[in-house]
């Protein structure tokens, strides 16, 4: 293997890369250099733009401005295959292998060694796979099917695949999230041997201990922008946290002060194996309680279980004193619970239906007379909410697909507010919507709490959590690890609890 002398150009660099989706700026003027023989950490909150950056490197997204350079030459990746040809490989958190093909077949998918008559040379393929695993220093049988491999082993298969086409830039997107301690150590050993072989590894992780243990340099991103790059040895955990969150809680959050009333929601010992455990909390009328934590901490799963879309295995959910039956959304609605779900397009709206039909879907029965729905009643009800939420739409009989993300979210809100809930659960209420509409949604939530509705909000955006919430519950790996009053909650204290760094004061 050839070793690059120190002054060689970086293996891969991003220069001034920006990428927008509609009005959302996912990346703004980000630069990054990956040198041969280094493991480079990428840190940032949820929504800081890490995933978009990875997708630009992988050739999934094409940058709006700026460019990607490989070995000092600007390149334009039109498709993931281009990136692969240029020697860039991405190992995702949960690899997607073909479960019924053998490990060797997965590694050489589309590039199988052939022998006479264009038949696949199985022996050559197996030997090549064995050679790759030997270089990685791991033992996986190339002939076994991929089905049933642990996630750690699947990642190793992906890494072997990357080595088979001589990838010298490896991007690992939160690879350790689902691994056990031993598996993490083995992955680290592989990453170090790749580094020592002259490759560049970009390592994305929420776990600071891993960053400090494994990486040589660390780049921090925030709000889609580049913040800093430093050698890991020159930073402390506190420096890192500060750089990740350091910003003002802006005037985007018009919080009304409300004296909380009766307890509306009581959750006790809620659990489902492998997803969340022993979750207990309460929400009072007029209160906004935020459920914070990293993606995958189990927050959405908890609120879905509360609403009854998913079943839970243990624990109880009580609304205004009465216990809700398990797994019955209709019963939760009757008790005055509303859930604005995380995935607007898949869970919140029936995209093919019209705006008015979506807005009235939750109260078909209350709008009907003698069991019949009259079009005019539906139109009137939908129009009233459209006006209240200042929906920007052409005709209400148009399909919801014609609306912008922010206005689609307003339709979901209308659909649920129209049921006159006493508990409103909102899951990522402002994800993917423009700044102006965000502020409107925040004002609306604040106003609803002011009128005595209990609000439970799942959010990955710390400023939103801190700006809106009276209390913050922080989840980490399926459990509530901290409950912070408005006064105690700071970006640091929430981040510490969310990353499982217990017992540290901010």
């Amino acid at each position: 293997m050839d070793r690059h002398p120190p002054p060689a150009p970086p293996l891969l660099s991003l220069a001034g890369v920006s990428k927008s989706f509609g009005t959302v700026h996912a990346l703004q003027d980000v630069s990054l250099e990956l040198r041969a023989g280094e493991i480079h950490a990428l840190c940032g909150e949820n929504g800081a733009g890490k995933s978009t950056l990875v997708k630009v490197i992988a050739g999934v997204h094409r940058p709006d401005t700026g460019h990607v350079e490989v070995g000092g030459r600007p390149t334009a990746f039109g498709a993931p295959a281009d990136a692969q040809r240029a020697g860039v490989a991405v190992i995702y958190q949960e690899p997607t292998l073909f479960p019924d093909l053998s490990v060797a077949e997965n590694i050489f998918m589309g590039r199988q060694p052939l022998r006479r008559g264009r038949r696949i040379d199985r022996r050559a393929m197996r030997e090549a796979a064995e050679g790759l695993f030997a270089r990685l220093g791991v033992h996986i049988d190339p002939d076994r099917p991929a089905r049933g491999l642990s996630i750690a082993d699947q990642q190793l298969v992906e890494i072997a695949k990357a080595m088979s086409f001589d990838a010298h830039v490896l991007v690992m997107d939160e690879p350790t999230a689902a691994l056990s301690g031993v598996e993490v150590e083995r992955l680290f050993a592989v990453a170090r041997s790749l580094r020592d072989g002259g490759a560049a590894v970009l390592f994305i992780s929420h776990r600071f201990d891993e960053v400090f243990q494994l990486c040589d340099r660390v780049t921090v991103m925030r709000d889609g922008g580049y913040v800093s790059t430093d050698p890991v040895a020159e930073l402390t955990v506190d420096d890192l946290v500060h750089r990740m969150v350091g910003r003002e809680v802006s005037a985007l959050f018009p919080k009304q002060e409300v004296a909380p009333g009766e307890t509306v929601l009581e959750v006790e010992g809620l659990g489902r194996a492998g997803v969340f455990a022993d979750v207990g909390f309460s929400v009072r009328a007029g209160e906004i309680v935020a459920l914070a934590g990293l993606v995958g901490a189990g927050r959405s799963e908890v609120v879905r279980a509360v609403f009854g879309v998913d079943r839970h295995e243990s624990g109880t959910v009580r609304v205004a004193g009465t216990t809700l039956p398990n797994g019955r959304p209709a019963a939760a609605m009757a008790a005055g619970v509303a859930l604005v779900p995380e995935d607007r397009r898949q869970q919140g709206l029936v995209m093919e239906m019209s705006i008015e039909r979506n807005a009235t879907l939750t109260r078909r029965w209350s709008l009907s007379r003698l069991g019949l729905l009259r079009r005019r009643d539906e139109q009137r009800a939908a129009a009233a909410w459209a006006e209240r939420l200042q929906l920007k739409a052409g005709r209400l009989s148009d399909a919801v697909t014609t609306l912008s993300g922010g206005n689609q979210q307003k339709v979901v809100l209308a659909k649920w507010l129209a049921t006159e809930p006493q508990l409103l659960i909102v899951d990522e209420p402002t994800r993917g919507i423009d700044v102006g509409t965000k502020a409107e949604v925040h004002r609306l939530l604040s106003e609803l709490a002011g009128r005595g509705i209990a609000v439970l909000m799942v959010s990955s955006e710390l400023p939103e959590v801190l700006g809106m919430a009276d209390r913050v519950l922080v989840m980490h790996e399926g459990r509530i690890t901290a409950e912070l009053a408005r006064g105690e909650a700071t970006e640091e204290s929430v981040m510490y609890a969310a990353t499982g760094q217990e017992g540290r004061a901010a």
Partner: protein
Amino acid sequence: MGPEVDDPTTSAAAAPPERPAPTARVGAVGSAGSALRSLLRTREASIVGVLVASVLGASLMVDGFATGRNAGFLILDVTAIALIALPMTLVIITGEIDLSVASTLGLTSAVMGQLWVAGLPLEAIVPLCVLLGSALGALNGLLVTVAGLPSLAVTIGSMAMYRGLAYVVLGDRAVADFPFSWTGGATARLPGTDVPWIALLIAVLAVVFGILLHATPVGRSLYAIGSNDEATRFSGISVRWTKLWLFVVSGTVAAGAGVFWTLQYGSARADNAFGLELSVVAAVLLGGVSIFGGRGALVGVLAGVLLLGTIRNALMLADVSSDVLDIVTGLLLVVSVVLPTTLARVRERRPRPAPPS
């Protein structure tokens, strides 16, 4: 072609055109001009147009088509299809399918014959048979909703199973000694006309199903389930419960059609209505219901049933063999599935929306 050209309605968005309106404008009094125009652009309108054209064409070209007597026969001929197509429309709109209907009809007919041989009065046999249909439908429904199996697989299985059971019950015998008061009564005409009374029942049921589908909260949820069952579940609608009931209704109506079929032809046989499920599905899809669920209207289906009946009746009068009739039915089925998809694809290709993210 540039991104924003010609017709403002088509360039409005990435949403496939022709989609927003057709669901349930039927019967509702829209706001004049624009509503009428979008009504005329729907698939239901085109299928009604095709129906009118075929009736006119057949009247001009086929001797004996345009008589009241023949119209009566035509209606009796499509009665079973029309009855079963009503619940089938609802089933397909939720994105499911019930292919066991013809076998349910056959099994009902066989059981009816056997019970008659056993000496039960028809007054008792008929309700028992209809109940049997509900049970057969419930079995389908439970397999789809509780076991979570795809209805295509479930009802292909029960299609074979119910037909097999029919042979177990009656063998290849035929029971044909039903009293004339019942068999003749089944095909009786409304006094003073050539119209069979069953046409009236079909009309009443069509109105009931039409109102259920287009003007009730239940109907609304059927469209939502067919378009996106996850969002529907998140809206507090029990998707499983709804689907279970649809299969029960489908089985019940198929059994009712089985009773009628047996009396109409005066013969209970295990192979009654063999292959009829294809005609039913063809009529429903021909009527503009999407095989993928979420779209369709009952008027279109009624027009589809009549169109199928008209074509078959005209060909029969023109002495075309029954094999050819089956080919025509199959062809109509394929065309009704392929045509809308192709049209949608052609339309999508025309105005190019913003580049994919």
